[in-house]
C-alpha cells in the first residue's frame, strides 16, 4: 500500500486538523493548572448528617476573605474547596468555620502547596523534557551511524523529535479542550503522562526507522521514499498489534479504574494513540522530505 508519495500532504493536513483546535483552546482558555503548579490549597470534605447548599458554604467562608475561593461539588458527594496559597493559620480558620456550621465533617483530603514548589516543578519538568529530547537525538544518531553515507543519521533523530513535538502538541491541546469542560487539571501526574508519551512515541518511531535502516542496506538501488514506504507496510502489523494491546489495558484502567487516576490514564490514551499515528504518518514523511533535499 502506498502511504507516502502524493499522500504525504494528507497526513500533515490531518495532523493540522487535530492540532489546530487544541492550539486555539490553548490560546483562548489556556491550561487548567492544578495546585501542584500554581500553589494553593484544596480541602475535600464530606458533610455527614446535615443538609447543605454550595451557596451556603460560600457564605460561611466569605468572612474569612479567602483568596481565589472556589467550591466544586464532586460525583462522590464530596465538596472541593480550593484557594490560592495561604498561610496555615488561614486554613485552620477555614476548617474551624466549617466545623462550627456543620458539626461532624469528614476531611477526605487536604493539600497545601506553596508557590515556590510549583515553580520548581515547572522548571524541572521543562528541563526533563529538553534533556530527554537531547538524549534521544544523540542516541538515535549513534544507533543509526551505519546508514549509507548519503543519508544523515541526525535527520533520523531530529525527525523522531518532530513526531514527538507533534504528539506533545496533540496531548496538551486536547487536554486544554477537555480541561475546559471536564475540570481535568494539569498536575504532577500530567507531567508523568507527557513523559511516558514521549518515551512511547520515540519507541514507536524507532521501530519504523530501524526497518528503514535495514531495508536501505538490503536494497541500495531503491529510492529513499520506496524504502520508507515498504518499511511502513512491513511494520504496520506490529504497530497496530502493539498499540491495540496497550490501548486495551489503558481502556480497562480508564473505564473501571479508580477516579484518582482517570485524568492520568486519559492523557496516556490520547498520547499513545497519537504516538502510534505520528511514528508512521508524521516522522516518516518528514524524514522522506528531508532526506530528499540535498
Amino acid at each position, binding site marked *: 500500500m502506498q502511504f507516502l508519495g502524493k499522500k504525504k500532504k494528507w497526513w500533515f493536513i490531518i495532523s493540522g486538523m487535530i492540532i489546530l483546535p487544541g492550539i486555539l483552546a490553548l490560546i483562548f482558555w489556556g491550561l487548567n493548572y492544578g495546585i501542584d503548579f500554581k500553589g494553593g490549597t484544596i480541602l475535600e470534605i464530606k458533610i455527614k448528617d446535615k443538609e447543605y447548599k454550595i451557596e451556603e458554604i460560600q457564605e460561611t467562608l466569605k468572612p474569612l476573605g479567602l483568596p481565589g475561593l472556589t467550591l466544586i461539588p464532586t460525583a462522590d458527594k464530596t465538596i472541593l474547596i480550593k484557594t490560592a496559597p495561604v498561610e496555615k493559620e488561614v486554613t485552620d480558620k477555614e476548617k474551624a468555620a466549617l466545623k462550627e456550621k456543620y458539626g461532624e465533617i469528614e476531611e477526605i483530603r487536604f493539600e497545601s502547596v*506553596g508557590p515556590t514548589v510549583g515553580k520548581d516543578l515547572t522548571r524541572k519538568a521543562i528541563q526533563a523534557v529538553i534533556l530527554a529530547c537531547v538524549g534521544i537525538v544523540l542516541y538515535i544518531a549513534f544507533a543509526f551511524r551505519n546508514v549509507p553515507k548519503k543519508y544523515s543519521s541526525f535527520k533520523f533523530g531530529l525527525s523522531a523529535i518532530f513526531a514527538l513535538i507533534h504528539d506533545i502538541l496533540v496531548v496538551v491541546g486536547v487536554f486544554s479542550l477537555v480541561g475546559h469542560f471536564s475540570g481535568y487539571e494539569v498536575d504532577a501526574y500530567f*507531567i508523568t503522562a507527557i513523559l511516558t508519551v514521549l518515551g512511547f512515541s520515540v519507541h514507536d518511531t524507532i521501530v519504523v526507522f*530501524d526497518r528503514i535502516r535495514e531495508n536501505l542496506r538490503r536494497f541500495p538501488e531503491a529510492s529513499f521514499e520506496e524504502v520508507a514506504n515498504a518499511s511502513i507496510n512491513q511494520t504496520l502489523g506490529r504497530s497496530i498489534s502493539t498499540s491495540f494491546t496497550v490501548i486495551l489495558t489503558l481502556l480497562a484502567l480508564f473505564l473501571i479504574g*479508580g477516579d484518582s487516576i482517570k485524568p492520568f490514564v486519559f492523557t496516556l490514551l490520547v498520547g499513545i494513540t497519537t504516538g502510534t499515528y505520528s511514528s508512521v504518518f508524521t516522522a516518516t514523511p518528514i524524514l522522506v522530505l528531508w532526506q530528499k533535499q540535498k
Partner: protein
Amino acid sequence: MKRYLLPLFILLVAFGAFWVDRPNVKPLEIEALNIERDLKIHQGLDLKGGVHLVYEGDFSKIEAKDQEKAHQGVVNVIDKRINALGVTEPVIQKGQIGDKKTIVVELPGITDTEAAIKMIGQTAQLKFLEQKDNKWTETGLTGAHLKNAEVTMNPETGDPEVAIEFNNEGAKLFKDITQRNLQKQVAIQLDENIISAPTVQTVIEEGKAVITGKFDIKEAKNLAINLTSGALPVPIKLIEQRNISATLGPESVKKSLLAGVLGIILVALYMIFHYKTPGLLAVIALAIYALIVLALFKLIPVTLTLAGIAGFILSIGMAVDANILIFERMKEELKGGKPLGAAIEEGFKRAWLSIRDSNISSLITCLILIWLGSGLVRGFAVTLAIGILVSLFSAITVTRTLLRFFIGKKIEKFIKI
C-alpha cells in the same frame, strides 16, 4: 549439556521469584552480605494514607560552609521527634527546591496530623533568663545543657509539668544562676515566649528543675520529647502539606488493580487468539516476567505508589511489544519460505535491533526522570525502568527458549502463526 543450561537458569530464576512473591514469605537475612529485607510490598502514601509534609529551612543566619551540616541537623532532630511519636516507616529526607533547602517528611497511617505538625514545627529553643536593670537577659543556660526531660504531675495541683535534668555543665550554671538570683525571678523562655517566671527560693545544686505552664498532658508530653531530641538548628516553615485519607487510597487502588488485571487478561487473550501457540508461549513468558518484576520490587525494595503501578502496567505493554515485534518478524521470514527453526532464529535476530533501540531510548527517558523528578515522577520512572530491563530478558531469553523447545520435535506442527 549447554542446551539445557539456559532453560535451567530460567527455571531457577522463575522459582526464585515465585519464592519471594509468595504471600507470607519470611524476611530474608544474609548476614555475610549485610542484606536484610522484609520482602513486603512497601506501599506509598497514596495507597496507605498518611501525610506528606515539606518544610523550608531558613539557613540565612548560618555560615555557608556549615549549612549542609545544619540541614542534616534539622533532619536528625525531626527524625528523633517522629520516632518518639511511634510512626511506622516514616520518611524524613533532605530536599531542595530551587536554591532553598527543604525537608520532606512522610508519615504513613497517621491520624492526628495537626499534633504531628505542631510537634515537628516547634523550634524548641529553651533559654533561661535573669533580670538585669529590669530587663530579661540571657544567662547562657539553654536547652543544649539538658540531659533529660519528662512529664510529671504536680503533687499539689495535679497539673502536668515537665521535669528537666541538666548535664554537669548545665547543673553548674544553674547553681550559679540560682545563687545570683536568690529571692528574685528567673524566666524560662521557649521559642521567644516566656512560659514561666518563678521566684528562686533556694540554691539548687543537683541540676534539676520543673517547667510549669498552662499545658495539658499532650502538650507537656510533646514539649518533653522536643526538649530531649534537641532544638532545631534553624527555624522551619511548612510549605507543602498533603493529607491523604486512608479511605480514598485502598478503594482507588482496588479498582485500579482490578482494571490492571482485566487489562492483562485481555492482552493475553489477544496474544493467544492472534499468534496461536507462540502467543501462548509469550503469555507464559510474560507471567514469568511479572513474577520477576514483583520479586525485584520486594528485594530492592521499591515503594509502590499509584504512579508506580502505572509504570509497571506500561512496562508490561513494552514487554508485550517485544514479543509482537519478534512474532511479526517470524511471520515474514516464514512467508519468505524459511523453515521454522531458521525463521525463529532470524526473527529474534532481526527484531532484537528494534527492541534494543526502542527500549534504550525509553531507558534514557527513565534515567533523566529518576535524576530530575520528584517523589511521584521518580516512583513512576523507577518501576518503568525495572520493567524495561526485565522485559529485555524475558522477551529475548524466555520466549526464545520456550520456542526452541518445539523445533525438530513432533510437536513442531503446533507452531503456526
